[in-house]
């Protein structure tokens, strides 16, 4: 209610769903709490929490600045990979209001395909010449992206398209089923073992700023992620296809009447999201050198949390959320001063997800279902 009424016109009344006339954001549990506590107390509690968090971060920074920056860099890199996955969730959610549970598994399969390309097709090792290595990795990236795009589009075609007018839970449940199905495809194709590749992108130091070392594998992730994101932003904001996407997500019926081919636009969105997931799979594999069939699910959940954290449906929000989550994870696992440690990472991430959904369902940057803006 806070955001829905405060920030201009009612956001995104989606036509394919009559219950959307049911108000969307007063889901905020603040209403419940307000009954129990005065609002100022809730805000004060929130501020105290944020304050403690800041004290904790500064305290850790004071303990060891260089360690802090190294951990920060790890968080940033992981956050970039999460961001690529989170964007896929956000794109699909923006257009269909569907949480595509299978998305994380598309990511994992993309990584597994890439591992096969690297291990058997190109047979890359750490001693491969640099130029060959770069070309082969570029080819792997393209193949994984095409694979992810094709897979994601086929999932939409086979499983979700028929359910477009079904009650809202139907496609969601199908997505959960699809996710398990894809995991087993990975299990059958690649087995239960971790697929490990040699460390192709060395973790030697590319350059140093002060006492902070930038390692090649981390720099490479950022070097690939940033152009992909710029390209995506251009695509959605400046091209005809992007305009069609935004129109469809705002109002599919009106878009159809204006001559937008709604089905093709939705397919295109899934292709885009799948491509991003495939790219994320390759980057994850290069950075961590291992991949297994069931890793997509966990990472998918984390990426989804990121998308919600930033405000689902909001592309820059997904990135902000992903980097926030990446940093939280890295801080929790890498810092030493009053840190819960890696045993609690998942609890912290999901606790954060719950807190965000309960107290600020529109996310950090606000929910904007029409993509981009």
């Amino acid at each position, binding site marked *: 209610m806070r955001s829905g009424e405060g920030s201009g016109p009612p956001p995104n009344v989606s036509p394919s769903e009559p219950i959307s006339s049911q108000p969307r954001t007063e889901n905020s*549990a603040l209403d419940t709490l307000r009954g129990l506590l005065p609002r100022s107390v809730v805000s004060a509690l929130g501020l105290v929490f944020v304050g403690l968090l800041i004290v904790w971060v500064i305290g850790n920074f004071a303990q060891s600045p260089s360690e802090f920056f190294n951990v920060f860099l790890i968080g940033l890199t992981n956050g970039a990979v999460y961001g690529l996955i989170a964007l896929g969730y956000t794109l699909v959610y923006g257009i269909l209001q569907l949480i595509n549970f299978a998305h994380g598994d598309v990511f994992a399969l993309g990584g597994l395909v890439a591992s096969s390309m690297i291990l058997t097709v190109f047979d890359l090792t750490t001693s491969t010449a640099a130029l060959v290595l770069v070309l082969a990795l570029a080819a792997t990236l393209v193949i994984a992206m095409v694979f992810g795009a094709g897979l994601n589009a086929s999932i939409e075609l086979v499983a979700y398209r028929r359910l477009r007018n079904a009650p809202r839970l139907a496609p969601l449940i199908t997505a959960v089923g699809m996710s398990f199905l894809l995991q087993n495809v990975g299990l059958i194709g690649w087995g239960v073992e971790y697929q490990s590749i040699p460390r192709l992108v060395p973790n030697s130091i590319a350059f140093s700023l002060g006492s902070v070392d930038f390692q090649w594998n981390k720099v490479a992730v950022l070097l690939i992620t940033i152009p992909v994101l710029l390209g995506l932003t251009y695509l959605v904001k400046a091209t005809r296809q992007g305009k069609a996407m935004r129109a469809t997500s705002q109002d599919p019926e009106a878009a159809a009447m204006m001559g937008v081919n709604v089905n093709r636009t939705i397919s295109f969105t899934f292709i885009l999201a799948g491509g991003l997931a495939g790219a994320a799979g390759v980057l994850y594999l290069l950075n961590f050198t291992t991949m297994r069939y069931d890793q997509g699910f966990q990472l998918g959940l984390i990426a989804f949390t990121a998308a919600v954290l930033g405000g689902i449906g909001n592309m820059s929000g997904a990135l902000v959320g992903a980097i926030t989550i990446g940093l939280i994870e890295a801080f929790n696992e890498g810092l030493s001063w009053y840190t819960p440690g890696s045993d609690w990472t998942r609890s912290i991430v999901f606790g954060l997800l719950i807190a965000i959904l309960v107290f600020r369902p529109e996310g950090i940057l606000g929910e904007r279902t029409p993509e981009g803006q």
Partner: protein
Amino acid sequence: MKLPTRMKGSGPDAHPGEDTGGWMPAEVRQAWGRLPAPIQRIALPLLLTVLAFLYPKYAENLPGLFPAVGTLVIMIVFTMMAVGLNIVVGYAGLLDLGYVAFYAAGAYTAAWFASLQFEQVSFHFGSVGISREAVGIHLSVWLILLIAGTLTALAGIIIGLPTLRLRGDYLAIVTLGFGEIIPQFVRNGDNVFGFDLTHGTFGISPIDSPGFGKTLEDAIGVPASFQQSFEREQWFYWTALALLLLTVFCSVRLRDSRLGRAWIAIREDETAAAAMGIPLMRTKTWAYAIGAFFGGIAGAYYATFKSGAFPSDFYFNISVFLLCMVILGGMGSVWGVVLGGLLLSYLDQEGLAKLGNSFSEIIGQQIDVPKYNFGVYGLIIVLMMLFRPTGLIPERRRKKELAEGVHDETLYDESA
């Protein structure tokens, strides 16, 4: 998908039971028709119940494909959870992807109140089969089932109050989050500010067994403690069956109650339900609490059967497994869910391995079918949602809703 269902004309007013018994001779059918309606209605469930209760007595004579009695206990426990989940998902239409949290809560309640876990105290109340000197809290397991249900329902309310305002898919995610946090909490809970609450990854074991106590054993021959009885599995089976019947009974009665009708109204149109004066939050919270209640009882009972509560039992997969039972059986249809639950848990416990073995014999190559069980469940979910969203035994109202859709027709051509 829409048209054929409508053309069949098997709407809610089609004559139910018209084509049942087509294989019976005419006289039998006539005699059946002359019986009073209540008898007709309860005859089949009664027959099945009697057959089920006698199962341990004739199980040895059945071919190998039938489950062992011990397996049946597990099947029934999972079916009970599925019936509980059905209240949340099927009746009230709230997708819960973290039901495993309630299972865990029930199991750990049993572990806390009937084991050696809290060695600082020694408290006994109605416990059986355990020495009076043993440390830890030992309550009667029958009491614990009730406590577990109540505590889990309380947990359901606590989780539900802030989250049930969220719209459907967000609610699913929040429940999923709880389903992930609670197992991790249990795993790491061996050092909560220096206090060993959950015994970490080792879990808590052993847990006391249910039983009727020495007095009753001497008087009428029922076992003092199931775990120490010679017919251990049989007694666990009968108790499980009684619990399942109780759950089914409550579930059916709730469905037809004022509360149940409110749930269904919310499921079908929240706005309209609110306009008709149904308090949304309270009604949804009740669904959550009652669903959790049965999950807690089932979890506690399973823990006493296994005599242990281990964190590795509580994974997201279990939540999906239970959801799969509900979907396979038919969301909202109690008998459908019972069927779906028994079928899937049978496949999980014994069926897939047996089928896998015969399959491997046929093609002459060893295939580890149970390894792919969750792929099979995923496939079942997808296929059911696509081709028979109403489930094996559809609930009448749900069938109508899914066949006709609750949405307006779209204006644009979907097939384009």
